[in-house]
């Protein structure tokens, strides 16, 4: 029987570090709010100063972050994962999930922050849809025939989506595209 790290343990560790980061964020927000002008030279009531409410939000975030951090620390969230007790099955599954996440993230950011604006919208969309479908279907295919089918489907979908989306948004709904 494996005594690998459970999801609950990972959750407690995530809570600890997130609570720590949130406390720091709360302190920064409170400090930055304090630095905001009080506009006293304009005879403004100090209780309407722009930094008042953000400062209160910063204090509440600091308290909530500290509560989360302290609670997770009591449950052992500050401990680093023990490499010796790792469950390779779970780790492999996690690695695959992380891989899929980063591929989806990279493709999406590459499209929205890279291709869009640099190329005509229809071209950027076509390239993105084609790459997304091919990469994800290729990761799941085993034979050459299914890969060829995936490429064909991806190209077809890319052409349809690029044409239809550009036409419908620009001509029917009169929306300006990036």
């Amino acid at each position, binding site marked *: 029987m494996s005594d690998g790290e459970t999801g609950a343990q990972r959750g407690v560790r995530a809570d600890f570090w997130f609570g720590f980061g949130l406390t720091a964020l709360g302190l920064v927000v409170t400090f930055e709010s304090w630095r905001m002008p009080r506009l006293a030279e304009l005879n403004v009531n100090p209780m309407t100063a722009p930094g*008042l409410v953000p400062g209160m939000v910063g204090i509440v975030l600091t308290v909530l*972050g500290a509560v989360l951090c302290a609670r997770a620390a009591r449950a052992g969230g500050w401990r680093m994962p023990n490499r010796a007790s790792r469950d390779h099955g779970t780790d492999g599954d996690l690695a695959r999930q992380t891989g899929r996440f980063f591929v989806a993230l990279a493709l999406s950011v590459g499209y929205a922050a890279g291709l869009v604006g640099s190329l005509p919208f229809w071209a950027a969309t076509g390239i993105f849809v084609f790459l997304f479908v091919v990469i994800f279907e290729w990761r799941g295919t085993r034979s050459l025939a299914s890969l060829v089918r995936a490429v064909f489907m991806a190209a077809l979908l890319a052409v349809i989506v690029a044409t239809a*989306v550009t036409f419908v948004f620009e001509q029917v709904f009169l929306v300006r595209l990036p």
Partner: protein
Amino acid sequence: MPDGLQFFLAALVSFAEPATLFTIVWATLLGITVGMLPGLTATLGLALLTTLTFRLDAGSAILILICMYVGAIFGGSRSAILLNIPGTPANAASALDGFPLARAGHAGHALGLATVASFFGGIVGMLMLALIAPVLAEFALKFGSPEFFWLALFGIVISGRLTAADDPVKGWIAGFLGLLAAMVGQEGIHAYQRFSYGNSDLAGGFGLLPVLVGTFGFAEILQVMKNREYKTVRGVGDRILPRLRDLRDNARNILRSGLIGTFMGLLPGVGEDMGAWASYAAARRASKHKEKFGKGSIEGLIASETGNNAAVAGAIIPVLTLAVPGSAPSAVLLAAMFIHGIRPGPLIMIEFPSFVFEVVAMVFAASVAVLILGLALTRPLLLVLQVPRERLMPVIFVLCTIGAFAIASRIFDVWVMLGFGVIGFLLREMKYPMAPLVLGIVLGPILDKNFRRSMVLSDGSIEPFFTRPISAVLAFITIAVVCMAIPPIRRRILGLLSVFSFRRSKS
């Protein structure tokens, strides 16, 4: 009220045109499709459609959005029953009994019951909307700045408490992070640019729609692509039309769930998922067959589907009367109303008296469309669930990009969508609810402006926050909700209450 009935009937008559009927059908069908697909929520559907419809007239745009809203909350029941994956968070309770029914070979029966329950939920919610909204709007005329401050704070506190029932701290963190996001940009009293550091884009603040498209669209895409693929659906072989006996036996269940769902919808930021869970829990308590719950109980399925659809109309009540959203999708509806020049809030019954009843008629039309389309198109609609996620998600992301950009034509909004998408994904992974985050962003300016305005009026005294009657009640409820979530304080209070009740019973 006769005026209300007149406005309602006039609105219904105006819908009886081919173009409007066609709009109701396509928007509801689109809503059902969005709701059915795991990873696409009602909030995302509404946010994307707001972008598409912002050049239409106000009446048509709001009609489309309400049909999308009602359709999506209903549509989520399809995947909950057939795949055990709720299409939207509001349908999680439906999966508990819907999926066991489907596995036992009664998928068609379960889908039919869910459709009829959704329709009745919509009708109960609609009646409550027509009855409560005018009264609440009149009552809200008594609200001043301190009351609006407490209402905003109460919304964040109750939303955080109820949407993260196991860990309210996480709900409140999400709510206050939303408030923090709302603080970025030029504030409304002295026009000071907070947290902008000379950046003109940041000075404009984060737009609600790009934030929503990020947290509900891009974050969901990342989540869906990260997880293992869901199994595509089997066919439905049995009878879909529900038996009259099932409905007759559940008449009380439907009425109770409809009322509970509406009430949960009314609470700021609590929404449809809590409407379903609270109705489900009440149905279980009242049932003679408690043991069947979770194993294919018809009562359980009817309660959750009635509850979540009643909560849709319930969530619209505070949108119209207080300009405070009852749920995440209704926050988008609120934003859309502002875009179209409608000013929801306490003055709505004075400035736009007919609009409230037009919205009632829109909920009615959408509920009828759900009933007809849900029963007639059960089998064809299942084709939607057979689209592989690898082909669907890139198309959704293209729509998210357009949705974030189109309202203000700012590339900065696309960056906001990406940033909030990643933040939303990480928060979800750590089990933080999204509704308080959205509510924090919507209520941030209300809380900020009303707190400072009240301080000006009282010359820096916090006394009105606790001495004005409505304000004092809201303050008491807000503080009580916080105190009851802290275990040592809760134990102390419950201990005191039990001693008090023991003494009373002895005397």
